[in-house]
């Protein structure tokens, strides 16, 4: 069969157009799938106004620490904590005026691991014992932790504690559902990862009678937490560091 020069050019042009069209179609399909399988990013909003209502309330702290077998050492140097309270002026030193001081006096702010978007603690771990899951939870593999405490130095929020001694004797009532830790490992809040796997909210959220803690997916625009963050003024701890905390405080 004889092919003319004109016919050859026509055919090659058509094939090029077909190739380009295929690429465009594929690209469109790919972006569509990415859109539909958007990742989860768990976050929490703490309503300070509601949290202030009941003075001296420690329900969430007690519930968390007993559920996760957190040891209670009398010596503050050995303190292990997953969730705790600190005075407002220490937590938000630049967010107060001489008039707000009275409002927050005697109402310490609830603190926990911020489960940062870009956590500095995981970058420094020499053994990959801590990492951020696909759901945005910063977690620790206690089996692998060698206790170097680099992560504790890197965390700007003081969220991590070290087991200087065997924690078991210091646990008031042992919860057999959750493993204890051992001497020489670092621990912190895990956003109740073991409960999230069973589609349950974190223990602290469930324990709060005032409903001051709201937990949800920050990637879902219509989730309760996103609605709250849209309607109320919210702050993060030390946002200037660029760690992107997932714990928000509703002022």
């Amino acid at each position, binding site marked *: 069969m004889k092919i003319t020069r004109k016919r050859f050019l026509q055919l090659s042009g058509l094939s090029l157009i077909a190739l380009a069209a295929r690429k465009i179609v594929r690209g469109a399909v790919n972006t569509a799938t990415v859109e539909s399988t958007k990742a989860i990013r768990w976050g929490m909003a703490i309503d300070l106004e509601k949290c202030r209502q009941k003075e001296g309330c420690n329900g969430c702290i007690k519930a968390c620490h007993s559920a996760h077998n957190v040891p209670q050492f009398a010596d503050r140097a050995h303190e292990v904590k997953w969730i705790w309270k600190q005075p407002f002026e220490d937590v938000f030193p630049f967010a107060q005026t001489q008039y707000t001081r009275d409002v927050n006096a005697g109402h310490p702010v609830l603190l926990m691991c911020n489960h940062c978007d870009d956590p500095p603690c995981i970058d420094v771990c020499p053994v990959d014992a801590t990492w951020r*899951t696909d759901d945005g939870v910063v*977690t620790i*593999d*206690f*089996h692998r932790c060698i206790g170097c405490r680099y992560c504790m130095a890197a965390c700007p929020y003081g969220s991590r504690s070290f087991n200087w001694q065997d924690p078991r004797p210091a646990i008031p009532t*042992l919860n*057999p*559902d959750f*493993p*204890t*830790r*051992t001497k020489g490992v670092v621990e912190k809040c895990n956003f109740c*990862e073991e409960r999230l*796997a069973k589609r349950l909210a974190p223990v602290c959220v469930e324990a709060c009678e005032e409903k001051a803690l709201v937990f949800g997916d920050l990637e879902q625009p219509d989730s309760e937490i996103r609605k709250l963050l849209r309607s109320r003024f919210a702050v993060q701890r030390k946002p200037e560091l660029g760690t992107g905390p997932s714990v928000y405080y509703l002022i």
Partner: protein
Amino acid sequence: MNDRPFILGGLIVFVVFVTAPIWHGVATRKIALAAPEIKLPVRERECVAPVGYMRTSHMQLLDDWREEVVRTGQRKYVAYNRKVYEKNLTQTCLSACHGSRQEFCDRCHNYNGVSTLSCWKCHSDTPQVARNSP
């Protein structure tokens, strides 16, 4: 060549001396060590893997479970018989099946002189009978 008896005699003495433990073993009766008395599960009849595999490779299975649960969040294990188990040392292995760390794990480990890799330093070895009783 007058030394031949001495050399041969010496060789024989040497061979007998070197192989003495073997002869001793043959001569004396074998000591039969009693197998460890392991308390077998009461309720469950089959393990998450065939018994032969579990005897030789339970540590590998537990290590894999640990890795999968902690690292990738896969908490369900589909066994060889299509049964689905929760990958959980305290609840699945201990509470739902074997019942006692001392009477199962420790007996065999002590018999074989193998340490237990400190699993139980963190994981609870108290079986939760109430929850898992039928």
